[in-house]
């Protein structure tokens, strides 16, 4: 079980690193799909079967298709000459800043007193328990989410229709 976690975590990390350091955005997008699949596998191990399914369908399916569609639409043939970097050490400074962010997060995690978990009760993350929670305790957020999606649809249509002038 832990071996599987380490394998999937390594795949997720390597794919994530390739997302960041690939020159061409198309390759970044394809590696991001690999990353999402690995994370979905980890969800499956953490008794979150429904979330793993919608991770694959929504993230790796819908969202990444949208990304690839936009990349193809822009027809970026080669990683053309990137504009001049205004600040020379920006790459180094970015990596150092991100490292500090990670260290702060690790400090917070290390301070928390967490023990090793026990085996899950059967049926923790399956569709039935998710649906029971979604339509009782989380009914209002669920309905608000539908309004949010409607707003996003209208906004995307308006933005894509007319030129920004």
């Amino acid at each position, binding site marked *: 079980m832990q071996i599987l976690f380490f394998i999937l975590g390594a795949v997720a990390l390597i794919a994530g690193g390739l*997302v960041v350091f690939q020159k061409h955005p198309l390759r970044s*997008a394809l590696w991001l799909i690999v990353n999402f699949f690995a994370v979905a596998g980890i969800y499956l191990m953490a008794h*979150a079967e429904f979330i793993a399914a919608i991770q694959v369908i929504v993230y790796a399916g819908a969202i990444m298709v949208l*990304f690839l569609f936009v990349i193809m*639409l822009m027809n970026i043939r080669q990683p053309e000459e990137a504009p001049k970097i205004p600040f020379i050490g920006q790459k180094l400074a970015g990596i150092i800043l*991100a490292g500090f962010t*990670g260290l702060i*997060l690790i400090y917070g995690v290390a301070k928390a007193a967490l023990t090793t*978990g026990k085996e899950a009760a059967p049926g923790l993350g399956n569709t039935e328990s998710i649906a029971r929670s979604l339509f009782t305790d989380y009914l209002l957020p669920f309905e608000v989410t539908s309004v949010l999606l409607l707003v996003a649809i209208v906004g995307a249509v308006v933005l894509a229709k007319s030129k920004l002038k």
Partner: protein
Amino acid sequence: MVVPVQYYLALSVALFALGVIGVLIRRNALVIYMCIEMMLNAVNLAFIGFADYFKAVDGQMFVFFVLTVAAAEVAVGLALIVAIFRNRGDVYVDNLNILKW
């Protein structure tokens, strides 16, 4: 054998830091967007780890809502990027300095 929650959190921190690196050092707006998605994914992983740790379904509900918000954000954000591309011809964030006088 149960995977300890610390492992989930460590992987989540690593993925989040990778996303931060990407946002800070890349200048293609599309790649920056992908890195933001990766950071959202890292936060989801922490939620799932805690949901497994506390044996409660509430963490998974939050992941559900984060997924929905991410989908809405991507739809609007990519529409914005397409509009910028049509207007200016590229999507490098260094060239988008029209507000800087």
